[in-house]
């Protein structure tokens, strides 16, 4: 591996313009806001990447939030209550 080092840094494929266009197209389907931007792909490439990062972070935050809500739900329902039965049937 070590003798590939010098080759690696110069030949590691960088994102080409085509790939950015491809990514923008795909992200447009996922993130509706991006569709409104100007078509200049080089300029908006960094914006697309930034939006993607933000979107991923937000999704992760939402998962944390949902996990917490569920954990609290399980805490607050009594063992034998009808609510507990509902939750257990949904989840377990």
């Amino acid at each position, binding site marked *: 591996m070590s003798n590939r080092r010098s080759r690696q840094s110069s030949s590691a494929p960088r994102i080409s313009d085509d790939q950015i266009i491809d990514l923008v197209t795909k992200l447009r389907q996922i993130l509706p806001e991006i569709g409104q931007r100007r078509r200049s792909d080089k300029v908006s*490439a960094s914006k697309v990447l930034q939006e993607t990062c933000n979107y991923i972070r937000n999704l992760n935050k939402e998962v944390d939030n949902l996990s917490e809500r*569920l954990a609290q739900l399980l805490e*607050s329902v009594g063992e034998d209550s009808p609510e507990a039965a509902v939750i257990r049937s949904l989840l377990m």
Partner: protein
Amino acid sequence: MQPTSSMKEEFLQKWQMGLQIYRPLIDNTSVSERMKAIKLSADVAMASLRRGTTCWSRALIQKTATEDNFLVRQMLSGIKAETLINKKLPKVMCHRKIVRRSKKILRRRKSRSAIEEVAAKARKLVNKKTQGLRNVVPGGEFMSNDVLLIQETLDYIVSLQTQVNVMRSIVDAAEAGSER
């Protein structure tokens, strides 16, 4: 690409299975421990949808295994669990110090026109944002290939959407069901 209903179904099944494993513990633990259990099961469920075919899913499984080895093994039993957990991730491909040093040398030699400067700045910004992406995608630090990084990112996003989608439906339904 969108989360398909078969993805959502499979996620739900696997997540339920993970929660079942925790079932005996759930009644006797704190909220924060429960939250962690719920999240870990959800992550393993999401990652296992890919059956080891993507870098991010393998990295996520490995990461979860360091937090709860038992859970991961249980959830993945039957899908070559051992290989996924023990599989060695490739060494970091890009040795940053060396790249930085060689870039410094190159910079001193070249003199640039204004247009080249602008292009270089744009390129620099894209690289910076790409690096940001590496920080949020599991296993990103091992993807020196930008093309791979983009592919993995797109797949990871669709999987996250599946995860959020299903979890949201369940939690909303459970909260509605427990309203007095």
